[in-house]
């Protein structure tokens, strides 16, 4: 049995009268790929923003590797091994692909209060970043400005950036959003490659991606987790079908 890596207890967040997270309990096991699905407006983005420290809950706790991280900032969580990608691609458009990743490597290898030596000439940063770009299939694009990469490449670059922080947990917010069929297939292949070696939280609308990748799925509806289980269980769960999956799965 795997250990619990991330544990969420009674998480609650409201915006005025809107209860976006309603006593959410969630457990992500070490090494699993855990998908969070739910209809639009279910509170997925609010939930994962609280996991990553971009937003703070009104109540409840978030434990990471046994440590209470509820009050920690996003950078502090990142330093403990919590990496994320964003629904809207978040990269450094005016840096090259290699520089994007090198910066993330730099964040986790020694002090950055160094003023003399050019960072781009540090062989350890370069080689680590190059290896990760290779891994996500951007090996040949390292010198290209991130702004000039194709959309799918930018998504892959963002994942490379997250991987470069050597995370224990990688939170992916709609990694195939806005992608064409071919790009989606490539991204799913990349995520399958990462799966198992890393603990992944996958928030996704694309059901092909979810059911082909997830070990377990949690279904979020109106800020509540209504079910958690293996893909077959979720498929078969009548409450889930009624609330969300509907004809898409039945078809």
């Amino acid at each position, binding site marked *: 049995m795997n250990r619990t890596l991330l544990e969420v207890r009674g998480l609650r967040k409201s915006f005025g009268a809107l209860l976006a997270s309603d006593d959410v309990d969630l457990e992500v096991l070490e090494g699993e790929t855990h998908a969070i699905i739910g209809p639009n407006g279910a509170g997925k983005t609010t939930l994962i923003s609280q996991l990553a420290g971009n937003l703070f809950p009104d109540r409840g706790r978030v434990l990471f590797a046994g440590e209470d991280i509820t009050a920690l900032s996003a950078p502090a969580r990142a330093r403990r091994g919590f990496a*994320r990608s964003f629904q809207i691609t*978040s990269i450094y458009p005016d840096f090259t692909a290699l520089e994007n990743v090198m*910066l*993330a490597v730099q964040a*986790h290898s020694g002090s950055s*209060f160094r*003023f003399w*030596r*050019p960072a781009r000439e540090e062989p350890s940063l370069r080689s680590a970043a190059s290896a990760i770009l290779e891994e996500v299939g951007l090996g040949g694009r390292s010198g290209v400005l991130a702004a000039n990469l194709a959309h799918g490449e930018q998504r892959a670059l963002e994942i490379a*950036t997250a991987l470069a922080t050597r995370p224990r947990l990688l939170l992916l917010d709609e990694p195939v959003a806005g992608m064409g069929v071919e790009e989606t297939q490539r991204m799913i292949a990349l995520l399958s490659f990462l799966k198992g070696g890393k603990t992944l939280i996958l928030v996704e609308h694309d059901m092909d991606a979810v059911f082909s990748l997830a070990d377990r799925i949690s279904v979020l509806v109106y800020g509540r987790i209504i079910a958690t289980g293996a893909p077959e269980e979720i498929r078969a769960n009548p409450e889930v079908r009624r609330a969300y999956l509907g004809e898409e799965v039945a078809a």
Partner: protein
Amino acid sequence: MNSRIRAIVPAAGLVLLAAVPLAAALLDQPFYLDLVRRIMIFAIAALSLNLILGYGGMISFGHAAYLGVGAYAVGVLAHYGINDGYLQWALAIGASALVALAIGAISIRTSGVYFIMITLAFTQMLYYLGISIEEYGGDDGMRLQVKSQFPGLIDLNDANAFYYLVLAILVLALFLGQRLVDSRFGMVIRAAKSNEVRTRSIGFSPYPYRLAAFVIAGAVCGLAGALLVNHTAYLTPEFMNWTRSGELMFMVILGGMESIAGPVLGAFALLLLEDALSGWTQHWQLVLGPLLVLSVLFLKRGLAGLVFAKNE
């Protein structure tokens, strides 16, 4: 070809600047020596502002504060008969760094228009402080009776020697500035400007890096202030006037924010233009204003974008 141009332009600029004292002597126009020395001092100040404005994305509308603090450090010590240059300049740099630390510690917690206004407000406070202290001449300011003394090293009363000292400091500032922005530290402040959320998500809290950059910029500008008061031999709160902060911003934006040398070009363009136009008409600002507007509209990367080719 591009790399050759990139190497030739700074070298040619350096040769030109080094030849100014000779040319001024041959033409019997000591005024030019004075003018270029003044421009170089402002270039150092603009360069320091660019570290936080161009590279750090911190739109400080109060950078003249450090020009003033540096100048007052020298002037006040001289007022009490302490003319030792090492001590004066060390105080100019140290006091500016401390003031920048205090202003930065508060301002950097804000962003956007609040940051602009709060840096402006702090500088205005210092400006009115300068006006209110009668002992140092109030709003009239005071003369610097004796220039900073560096016995055995250099005599600032020697116009050529002073000129070359300013040139040397400018070159050193350019060199160190380039090292800084390419270093790990420089990458972090550039990253925080480019995408703060991403930067936090990979594990950097931008605040301490921004504050350190703010202090470094203040310290370098304080040194420019020490040079300026020796150059003018006069000290006035006007050094800290908000229009002065605006001029420094203009030099940076006109010259180009994505290059270390850009603000130097900006300082030369702005001050030479100002000099030429003011000799031609009393209403020179009417001409200068539209020119600046046009440059902002059409020179996206500033003058540096015209002179230097883009990296990638």
